[in-house]
């Protein structure tokens, strides 16, 4: 009994964290899946899903059920263990970063002093998942998608890291909560507009979304690395993609948009979380917006852009930041 008493609060905390993580991942996928289709529709002057439920609101649920009911087809010449592992590897790690994201000063799983590193470390697993998925399918299109994805993600990780590093220099910490708290008078988007822009671009590339959706460029590679996936294993990739979007947008919010800061709403303790989510979804809206506006870039141009513009600019930005931090 004594043991139970001592361990119970921590256990409950872990359970709650896990449940919240699951709720965020699946809830976010539902919301974003619906919002993306609806927004895409309205960007194109059409209504989007309208059939199932009021304005198609339960379309995503039905789609999810359909995907769950579908057969998992494994191609005959696929490398079966790799093929089955890839979607799990793409999906499972997305829970971990959610644990360290400070939704508000009271809502955070764990405040790790290496929170940023944790997120980046986990994000790098995603690349591996795409790679072995593309390889395991034993399909040429998938292989191309995997190749592109790796080159793209590895290249864009650099400007992303460097632009975040500028903020880390300003705050002297890797802890996300402290970074969010450090911008109480001015958000870092005002102090570091260049880093913010670079991060936004790198973020789009990291999540493999249009206009940088080369790994799944459907007009060239049919569906890229997930050409051969069906049913649940496909939906795991999609869930992973939306969760990754949520995570990178959260990082942007924490680093540049003041985290949970905002006008406190009356009588509500967790109003910070509301602000936080509002900012995250505003960024996600932006992601959706550019996806439905631009054509896709070409692969070498994508890399050129990274090496010719993003990395030099982020390095210059870092240098200026360091000098400023030292002087002030």
């Amino acid at each position, binding site marked *: 009994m004594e043991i139970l008493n001592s361990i119970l609060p921590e256990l409950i905390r872990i359970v709650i964290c896990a449940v919240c993580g699951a709720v965020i991942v699946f809830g976010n996928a539902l919301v974003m899946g619906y919002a993306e289709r609806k927004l895409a529709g309205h960007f194109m002057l059409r209504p989007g899903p309208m059939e199932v439920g009021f304005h198609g609101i339960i379309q995503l649920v039905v789609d999810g059920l359909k995907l769950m009911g579908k057969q998992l087809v494994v191609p005959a010449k696929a490398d079966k263990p790799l093929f089955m592992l890839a979607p799990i590897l793409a999906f499972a790690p997305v829970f971990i970063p959610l644990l360290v994201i400070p939704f508000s000063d009271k809502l955070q799983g764990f405040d790790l002093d290496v929170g940023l590193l944790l997120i980046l470390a986990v994000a*790098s697993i995603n690349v591996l998942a795409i790679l072995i998925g593309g390889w395991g399918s034993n399909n040429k299109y998938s292989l191309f998608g995997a190749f592109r994805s790796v080159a793209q993600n590895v290249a864009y990780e650099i400007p992303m890291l460097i632009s975040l590093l500028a903020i880390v220099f300003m705050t002297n910490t890797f802890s996300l909560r402290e970074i969010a708290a450090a911008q109480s008078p001015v958000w870092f988007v005002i102090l570091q507009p260049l880093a913010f822009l670079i991060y936004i671009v790198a973020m789009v590339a990291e999540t493999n979304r249009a206009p940088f959706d080369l790994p799944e460029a459907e007009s060239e590679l049919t569906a890229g690395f997930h050409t051969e996936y069906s049913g649940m294993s496909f939906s795991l990739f999609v869930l992973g993609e939306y969760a990754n979007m949520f995570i990178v947008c959260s990082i942007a919010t924490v680093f540049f948009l003041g985290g949970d800061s905002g006008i406190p709403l009356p009588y509500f303790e967790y109003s910070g979380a509301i602000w936080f989510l509002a900012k995250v979804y505003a960024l996600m809206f932006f992601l959706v917006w550019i996806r439905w506006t631009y054509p896709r870039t070409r692969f070498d141009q994508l890399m050129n852009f990274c090496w010719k513009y993003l990395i030099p600019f982020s390095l210059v930005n870092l240098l200026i930041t360091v000098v400023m931090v030292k002087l002030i």
Partner: protein
Amino acid sequence: MIVYKYIAEILFYAFMILTFMGGFMAVRSKMLMHAVLGLAVSLFGVAGLYFHLGSPFLAMMQILIYVGAVCIMIVLGVMLGNTPDQLAVKNFSGRNTLLALLACATGFFTLFVAIGQTKFVPAAERIGDMSIRFVGENLLFKYCLAFELISVVLLTAIIGAIILARGGREEVAK
């Protein structure tokens, strides 16, 4: 509080098994791709062991650098250098198995005996703690030269890699 220790202990076993499993997978699998996956799994296990050794920072770096960079680079090497049908045949040959096992067993036995025989004495007094701040201070002040050297090594490696990888290109393409 003892429960935590048990949980930690179970986790330790899990990481250990992960490390060994990955290792065996890496050296015994027929497909190179599986070998790389085994390496990744094993490195995860080692990252967990670092966690147990009190350094979450290094655990993160292990995943970030090894899984995120080294493994992926190796995978790229696998994909670039091989066509799928070449892979299964070329990678692995069991012709020296007995010899290899013997050598490994001898080596392991020697180490085992050495570890058993030696008496390790903990330092009387420890300065500092395991935090990143302390590591960072040490890295940038006390071991500054080594830090600079490693960056030079990395830079050289990158330049060398680029030169090597580009070198053969002209004669093949176009």
